[in-house]
């Protein structure tokens, strides 16, 4: 339950920042995907069925504030969690560098999925055009990964949580 509470609060804070900062500063495409960083942190360090459910909930929360297709980001964040989980188990590592790479790829993957989901079969004409934007957003998100991981680490220590990423 502490895990659920911690990530719920973190997700709400991330969503509040993502929806309001563009109003204060016109950063447009430069806005990092903070919730995806949280999902990668969850996948790398908290292995369990509950982690997958939290990732689904986080994606659903993004769907509430973005786009028109409910379930799209829920799908992508659950998939991101699964990939982060699988990679951390295979590499037996929770390295921040690997996390940053996962975040970069996750942002591009999620962005492409959003574009295809929104545009359907017409996406092919626009997808190539948005790749540079997604790469830039991915890079910015990857740069912020260590700080977000650090903040979450502090939060977990504060509530007495420890990562459960060892093979079971």
């Amino acid at each position, binding site marked *: 339950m502490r895990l659920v509470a911690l990530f719920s609060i973190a997700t709400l804070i991330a969503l509040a920042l993502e929806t309001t900062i563009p109003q204060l500063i*016109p950063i447009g495409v430069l806005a990092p995907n903070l919730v995806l960083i949280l999902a990668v942190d969850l996948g790398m360090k908290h292995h369990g*069925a509950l982690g997958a459910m939290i990732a689904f909930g986080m994606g659903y929360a993004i769907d*509430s*504030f973005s786009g*028109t297709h409910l*379930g799209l*980001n829920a799908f992508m964040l*659950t998939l991101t969690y699964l990939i982060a989980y699988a990679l951390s188990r295979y590499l037996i590592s929770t390295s921040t560098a690997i996390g940053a790479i996962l975040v970069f790829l996750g942002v591009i993957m999620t962005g492409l999925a959003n574009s295809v989901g929104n545009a359907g079969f017409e996406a092919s004409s626009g997808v190539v055009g948005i790749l540079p934007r997604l790469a830039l957003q991915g890079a910015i998100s990857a740069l912020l990964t260590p700080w977000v991981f650090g903040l979450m680490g502090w939060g977990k220590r504060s509530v007495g949580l420890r990562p459960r990423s060892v093979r*079971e």
Partner: protein
Amino acid sequence: MRGTFLWRYRVVLTSGLLLLLALHLLSAGVAPGARAEKPSLVLLWLLKPVQTIEANLADDTTGFVHDYFDLVNVRHENVQLKQRVAELEGQRTRLAELEVENRHLSDLLELREVLAMRAVAARVIGDDTTGLSRTLILSQGSSSGLRRDMAVISTEGVVGKLIAVAPNASRVLLIDDHNSGLDAFDQRSRARGIVAGLLNGELTMKYVDRTEDVKPGDSVVTSGMDGIFPRGLLVGQITRVSQEGPGLFLNVDIRPAADFRKLEQVLILTQKPPELAPDIKG
């Protein structure tokens, strides 16, 4: 329990089930008011206070000097006057459109009066989280009488329509989002088409027959045929007209009348527009 297949692969199995659930939500295209939509409306409601505080912060930063020297009542009166100006601007555009229609369509059987429509003013308090879709979050919700599919306009022109409504907040899908589509026509030549957004955020008018007389500089207005937007609201101005190959339709690029990046206040039309007879071109 531990060591069984289900325990060892619990993460993968749970993730698989959740992925299937997400695909089901996607493919079902959650209907308005469906149970699956309710948690998202709760989240909208939950975050509204934070978004309002941040929107106020943005306003206060620029309005600090005014607040310091002006009386609070003067600021309140200013907000009320801005709302009234927005309503009057909308009425003026519709009146101009009715004048054009009267001149070009001499076989109309009767003219309709411009009806004053009920509207609710709202502030823009949030943006789309991912930046890949074109939506905004507004400060009013169902407690103010708002419902899905209500038209949203600004003093400059059409903004979009409501796609999600919580008790005290709502989301508007902008007209330049790829999922948006509104029935409109060229105010000068009466050429009809569907105004839709592209993936790169630009606006285009689709299905305009290649024989139509459409030129850059023409104004595009709503036709009123979609039952959401009243007839005659300004959508934008045509910037480019081109034809690719032997296709049936023209490529028509539009610059939206409303600057979505600078929107602060909008009007939501809470009254359904009057039904129209099929448009007779003349």
